[in-house]
């Protein structure tokens, strides 16, 4: 789960990590008032859950109130990579002496929280990782003792000259690690961490992602969520035990298991079709889930045909068949549905569905994919 910069900074402030005073605005009038409150040059920053805001024109330095108003007008409502900007923050413009990248992530390879620090602050770190990977210092943190102050000092002595700056930066880093583990993050990033004209080290930006698996420990995060339309569907589906991601094709898919669901989408693509979604009905065999899954597929107006691919393990094919029959009794389905049942109770499942004229059956994944694509072409 991603949160906005302003929310991440609120969390940082709670851990005494130095951040700027920020004014959150949803209207141009509020931006103007924020300028008056701050009383000198400001930065207006789009609050949107996607990277590359700066490049897209979502961050503007404003010397005057007029400029701030203009920036507010331009940025509020702006589209950045498909997301509409609904909020901005206004902060005092900072005179930057130097800037750095600081990040913590859960790392698959070292099986640890990995600390990354770079003197290349303020730019997209992924770019640095591609072009100059040696410019990113990486240190795996021992999870049993946590990030030690001496580790923080050592890494900053690599990139900073002044011991006073190092002391402040190390203090921030130790606190950032505390945020990371206590708040169950998958990413906690300060980019840039800056030294200002008064030699103060501050977190000028903040990026935090929470671990979806840990949300049960943090009921308070729900109020922080800001989902777009597609994500709302995903979250709602999750509550029903489904893993659903809407795509832009015309062939709806219903599959059990994430890997098989991906492979089914791939197969549709391979045979020249276009999947409308990823949909994993999960491991248990509750017929209700199949009804809910059919609702999602039928509500997507782009869907012209459906491919159901079930390999029964814990999921029983007869339960899927029962769910389908229940769905048919509750909704009018006029588009072709290709179904492939294999594994646990496949025979029983096929038996239950044999009188349904609407269903096209297939023996294998490949056959199912070919048939569903054919049905769309007709």
């Amino acid at each position, binding site marked *: 789960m991603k949160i906005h910069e302003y929310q991440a900074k609120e969390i940082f402030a709670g851990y005494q990590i130095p951040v700027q005073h920020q004014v959150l605005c949803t209207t141009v009038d509020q931006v103007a008032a924020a300028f008056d409150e701050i009383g000198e040059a400001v930065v207006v920053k789009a609050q949107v859950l996607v990277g590359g805001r700066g490049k897209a024109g979502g961050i503007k330095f404003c010397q005057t109130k007029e400029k701030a108003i203009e920036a507010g007008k331009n940025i509020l409502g702006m589209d950045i990579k498909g997301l509409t900007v609904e909020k901005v923050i206004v902060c005092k413009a900072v005179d930057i002496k130097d800037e750095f990248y600081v990040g913590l992530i*859960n790392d698959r390879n070292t099986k*640890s929280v990995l600390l990354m620090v770079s003197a290349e602050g303020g730019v997209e770190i992924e770019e640095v990782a591609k072009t100059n990977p040696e410019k990113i210092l990486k240190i795996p943190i021992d999870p049993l003792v946590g990030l030690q102050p001496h580790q923080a000092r050592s890494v900053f002595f690599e990139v900073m000259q002044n011991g006073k700056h190092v002391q402040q930066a190390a203090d921030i880093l130790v606190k950032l690690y505390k945020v990371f583990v206590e708040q169950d993050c998958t990413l906690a990033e300060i980019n840039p961490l800056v030294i200002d004209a008064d030699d103060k080290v501050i977190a000028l930006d903040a990026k935090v992602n929470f671990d979806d698996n840990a949300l049960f420990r943090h009921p308070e995060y729900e109020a922080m969520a800001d989902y777009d339309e597609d994500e709302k569907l995903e979250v709602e589906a999750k509550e029903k035990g489904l893993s659903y991601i809407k795509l832009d094709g015309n062939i709806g898919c219903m599959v059990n298991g994430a890997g098989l669901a991906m492979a089914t989408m791939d197969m549709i693509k391979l045979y020249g079709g276009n999947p409308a979604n990823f949909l994993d009905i999960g491991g248990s065999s509750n017929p209700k889930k199949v009804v809910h899954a059919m609702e999602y597929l039928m509500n997507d107006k782009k869907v012209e045909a459906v491919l159901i691919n079930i390999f029964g*393990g814990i999921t029983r094919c007869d339960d899927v068949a029962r769910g389908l029959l229940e769905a048919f009794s509750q909704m009018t389905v006029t588009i072709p549905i290709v179904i492939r049942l294999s594994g646990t109770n496949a025979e029983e499942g096929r038996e239950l569905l044999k009188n349904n004229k609407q269903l096209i059956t297939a023996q294998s994944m490949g056959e199912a994919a070919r048939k569903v694509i054919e049905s769309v072409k007709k």
Partner: protein
Amino acid sequence: MSILINKDTKLVIQGITGRDGGFHAEKMKAYGTKVVAGVTPGKEGQNINGVPVFNTVANAVKATGANTSVVFVPPGYAADAIAEASEAGIKLVIAITEGIPTIDVIRITPILERNGTKMIGPNCPGLISPGKSMVGILPTMIFKEGNVGLISRSGTLTYEMVNQLTTNGIGQSTCIGIGGDPVIGLHYIELLTLFQNDKDTEAIVLCGEIGGDAEEQAAAFIKEHVTKPVVAFIAGQSAPPGKRMGHAGALITSGSGTASEKIKAFEAAGVRVAKEPADIPLFIKEALKL
């Protein structure tokens, strides 16, 4: 022969009194797995269809000589259960539980390393050495004893692959679902090593998916160290970036972790990559000249 589990596997089921634990205990027993104990704190002395229940893994090990554990404990308690097994001297833990916070797994990793405990999972279907033992939730009827080892990040996709092999008359030595989470226990390289050294495994199927760079590492390792034929499949070629495809670890971030990069890495290492699951048995037959 087989790897990790065999006829000598003595299994303790952590969370045996839960719905999933109890259900799959019966399935494993029916397949012939030696289920010697169950653990649920506070329920020592109970008996679940002939399996004695203990309060702690240590008690279970002491009383029964259990050497392998399978964890069905809910996400909030699962990492603790895995660590408990490790501290009790269990050398192989299979963590089925889906949804364990990643930091919890990271936190117990040094404990596993210190005790020399191997972990499969979490968020995995377990493993099977056909005809010998099954630990996990795998549908046993699709497997067949034989000489092909299989490693997969997925559950049902594994079944699809195995079914392709079995219906084409190709049996398996051991099949392992390593789990769909970002941070997991044994990964491709450790398992490829075990299969390479297993005299009854003649070929290996590796079934990967998007996210991370474990497949790229596996490709480099195969090129250097694996002499047995390996065929691969990668799921998620049509997955959009930035979306978690069901598995917590199946995520393309900033253009890395894509299927095409992984396929390229395998092909560069001389590993044939199947375009669809149905190609797998054909590739294996060609590789083994069957």
